[in-house]
């Protein structure tokens, strides 16, 4: 299985029936393809609606309805549109149960860096800073390393998106939870050992006494 699919499948299991969820661009968007049967989540799109559906069929795109990546999308029956102030009121006001985002770096204090690399890439934070501060749960879906280098660090070196807001990190190697004492490895992928995952993680991982095989 493709590692991105593995991550998306595992993240999808974190969602509960009825959750209001905001998915970031890229891999997080894939999560909606793997939501377990019997679980219905309501997707929020930061550019102004609740009740996002699937991508439209070719030829059925409505130029007035796009997702947060600017791509044509559909809305489900019962959806609602609103302006950006209401949209971010929903986000900041704690009305979103979970946001799923990618990351450049995450550290053992639950800090997140996801919006710029000084001198290289400065796309802007868009809605990410509001999402991370406002959503009830922040789930990071990312590949464990970038070109072999750890992304899970003792301390983020890139400019932060938010301080101490990350609730769960899901990578192709395992599931890690930031706690007050540090990072706890909760699940590990079938083909990975604890030594393997620690070797590519700069921060120290505490091993959950009930460490499980990653459930995908």
């Amino acid at each position, binding site marked *: 299985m493709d590692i991105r699919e593995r991550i998306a499948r595992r993240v999808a299991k974190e969602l509960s029936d009825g959750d209001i969820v905001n998915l970031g661009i890229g891999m997080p968007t894939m999560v909606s393809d793997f939501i377990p049967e019997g679980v219905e989540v309501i997707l929020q799109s930061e550019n*102004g609606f609740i009740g996002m559906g699937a991508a439209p069929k070719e030829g059925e795109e409505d130029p007035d309805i796009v997702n947060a990546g*600017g791509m044509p999308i559909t809305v489900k029956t019962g959806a609602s549109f609103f*302006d950006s102030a209401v949209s971010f009121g929903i986000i900041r006001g704690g009305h979103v149960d979970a946001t799923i985002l990618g990351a450049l770096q995450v550290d053992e204090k639950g800090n997140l860096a996801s919006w710029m690399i000084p001198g290289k890439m400065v*796309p802007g*934070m868009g809605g990410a800073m509001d999402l991370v*501060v406002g959503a009830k749960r922040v789930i990071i879906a990312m590949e464990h390393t970038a070109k072999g280098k750890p992304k899970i660090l003792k301390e983020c070196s890139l400019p*932060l998106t938010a301080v101490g807001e990350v609730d769960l990190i899901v990578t192709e190697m395992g599931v890690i939870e930031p706690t007050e004492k540090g990072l706890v490895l909760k699940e590990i992928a079938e083909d990975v050992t604890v030594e393997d995952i620690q070797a590519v993680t700069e921060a120290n991982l505490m091993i959950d006494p009930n460490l499980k095989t990653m459930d995908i």
Partner: protein
Amino acid sequence: MSKIVELEKALEYVKDGMTVMIAGFMGVGTPETLVDGLIEKGVKDLFIICTDTARPEKGIGKLIVNDRVKKLIASHIGTNPVTGQKMNAGEIDVTLVPQGTLAERIRAGGAGLGGILTPTGIGTVVEEGKEKITVDGKQYLLELPLKADIALIRGSKVDKLGNVWYKGATRNFNPMMATAADIVIVEAEEIVEIGEIDPNDVVTSGIFVDYVVKGEE
């Protein structure tokens, strides 16, 4: 009293160096006819306030590519590489603002508020130089209101009084920007008679709107 005018007449009010709010998210809900008109008219050194700079060939991106922007406030510039190049070359002074904060700062500007308190950006570079205020033990940043000389907005249906209805995701920053500028110009996808938009469906009241220009469908 009809507010409908020709494009050239509406754009007479936009002058070099002005602060201009332009609505839209990745170009959706952006008044493309007004943007094209600005480029044709030749105005320059604009201070643009917007969500994002779309793509080089779309929406606000066209103003960037055509060197009309001196200063920019936006939440995201990543989809238009030209913005980043001009920022790095020192040609455009860019300030990045979290999207929710931007929406509220504009809303505050139009609603007569002295600012807003938001937890967004605490502990990040966004807090630099800003006052922190603690309410019930939680820290917030004081973010100041934004206003403009001109707001360019886009409505799906607009009546002759300037009442606006927005379709789908085109609403985004339009309603807030319509309240926060001295002169508000609406590009209408469709112009309708007064009364054709049910008062319950009017999102932006005509009182905020100065001029209506017919745009492309």
